[in-house]
Structure formats: structure tokens, C-alpha cells
């Protein structure tokens, strides 16, 4: 009987101790160790660097733009953006080129107005056309070709080697 009572009391004591430990969590040492690990890792609030980095990069970009404007770099940026378009445009013709083109233009217009080219006129026109820039040369020759193909230009001896 005494043994049974002792067994019950010891069992209740062990159960109470187990309840206490289970209810109050780990020991102070274990909690301290866990706390040390937890503080080594960034806290959830500190662990959200993405938004802050993103904001920082936007700020840097804005800062760069402001600096570029302040230092005159904005002009350079605008110039570089328009540079490809400017490169595509041919340079303006020199006065000599413009005069050569006008001279050739007159020769072609004269031939088209007459509807004919003698050997002498063809020789003269050839000399004029060879002084203009390649693109204008091509366009003027094509005008003569179109006139020939439409039967609007007669060429003596077939001399159209312009």
C-alpha cells in the first residue's frame, strides 16, 4: 500500500515537472542560445532589403539625371539620342556641288523638253552629270531612262552612256 502511494506521488511529481517544462518552453540557456542565433539573422523587418534597394536605385538614377543636367551632361544625352538620326542625313551640299547639280539639272531638263539628244548634246550632258554627287547622278539618269522608256526621248546613235 505504501509502495503504491509512493509510486503515485512520484508519478504526479514527474508529471508536474514535465508539464512545467513543456508549458514554459526551453531553459534560459537554450533561450539565450536561440536568441543569439536569431539576432545573428536579420529580423524580418531588416530582411526586406528589396524595396529599399529598389528605392535607392531609383534615387541614384534621379540623382544621375540631375547631375547630368547640372553639369551640362543632359545636353550630351540628348545629342547622343539624336545622333543616329543626324548621321543618316547627308551633309548639306557645298556651293560647288550645288552649282554642279543645277548645271546638270538644266541639261536634263533641256533634253526632256526637247525630247531629243544629239551626239554633241549627249557629250555635254555626260560631262555635266559626272560632276554631281553619285545619288543625284543616279536620280537624273533615271529621269532620262524613264523618258526613253515612255518614248519621249530620242537619242542619236543611242548614246546614253551617262
Amino acid at each position, binding site marked *: 500500500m505504501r509502495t503504491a502511494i509512493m509510486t503515485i506521488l512520484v508519478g504526479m511529481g514527474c508529471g508536474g515537472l514535465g508539464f512545467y517544462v513543456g508549458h514554459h518552453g526551453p531553459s534560459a540557456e537554450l533561450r539565450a542560445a536561440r536568441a543569439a542565433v536569431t539576432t545573428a539573422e536579420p529580423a524580418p523587418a531588416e530582411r526586406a532589403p528589396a524595396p529599399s534597394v529598389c528605392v535607392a536605385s531609383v534615387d541614384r538614377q534621379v540623382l544621375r539625371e540631375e547631375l547630368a543636367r547640372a553639369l551640362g551632361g543632359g545636353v550630351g544625352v540628348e545629342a547622343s539620342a539624336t545622333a543616329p538620326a543626324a548621321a543618316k542625313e547627308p551633309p548639306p551640299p557645298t556651293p560647288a556641288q550645288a552649282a554642279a547639280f543645277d548645271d546638270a539639272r538644266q541639261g536634263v531638263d533641256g533634253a526632256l523638253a526637247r525630247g531629243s539628244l544629239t551626239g554633241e548634246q549627249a557629250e555635254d550632258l555626260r560631262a555635266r552629270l559626272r560632276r554631281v554627287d553619285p545619288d543625284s*547622278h*543616279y536620280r537624273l539618269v*533615271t529621269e532620262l531612262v524613264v523618258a*526613253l*522608256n*515612255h518614248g519621249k526621248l530620242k537619242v542619236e*546613235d*543611242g548614246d*546614253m552612256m551617262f
Partner: protein
Amino acid sequence: MSKSKSKWKLVMVVTCAILMAAGAARAGYKSFSTGIRMGRNADGSGLASGALSHARASSDSTQRMYCYSYATFGTCIAFPNTNTDGIACTTQDPGMLAVIRSVSGDSTVYFQTDSAGNCTNLAVFNDSGNMPKLN
């Protein structure tokens, strides 16, 4: 005497015939072009073809055909009759410019043009059958 002379003549004729036949057999294929041909539509488009050497050798002395090129463009022109009409085209296409630059004095040239004078097709045939330009 007269018998031996006639025999001699016969031998000469046969010999000449054999030699001529042998020469012709060695000469290779010869093309006989009908000259420059041109077709033109009302809108100015059309085509032309012909062998340059044949045009030069033609007995009518009015046919003319040529191509020329600069660094950035080229032109082909054909006159079946220089006293009347001709047809031409110009191009800046690098491929067509290369074709134009392959033309030789004995080439056959074919080209097509649209209504704006642009070459739309261009071909050159360098054929051993073409008559060589003699003079």
C-alpha cells in the same frame, strides 16, 4: 591529157571538201542571234535582250546595246533601232550591279524594267556560242 586534168580537179575538189568539213567540225557550236529584241508596255515597263557582239555585227548598223556602272549605280540600255526607240533601266542593287559588271563584249544581256526605270531583273550569259566581236 584532159583525163588527167579532170582527175586532178576532182582530187582538188574532194580534198577541199574534206578540209572544209574537218574545219567546221572542229569549230564548236555557234549561236546565230536574231539581234536585239525589245518589248515595251504603255506604262514604260518592258524588257530587252540581245548579244552585244551580234548587235555590233548586225548589217543594219542601228542596233546598240550596252551596260555601264559607277560605284553606286548601273544602267543597261538597248536600242533595237537607234533611230526610233530604246529601253533602259537603272539600279543601285548590289547584286544587279555585280551582274552588270560581269558583262563582256560578247555577252548576251537580258533585263526587265518597271515603269519607274528601275531594273527588276537582269541577267548576263557569257556563251562560247556567241559571235566574238571582230571589229
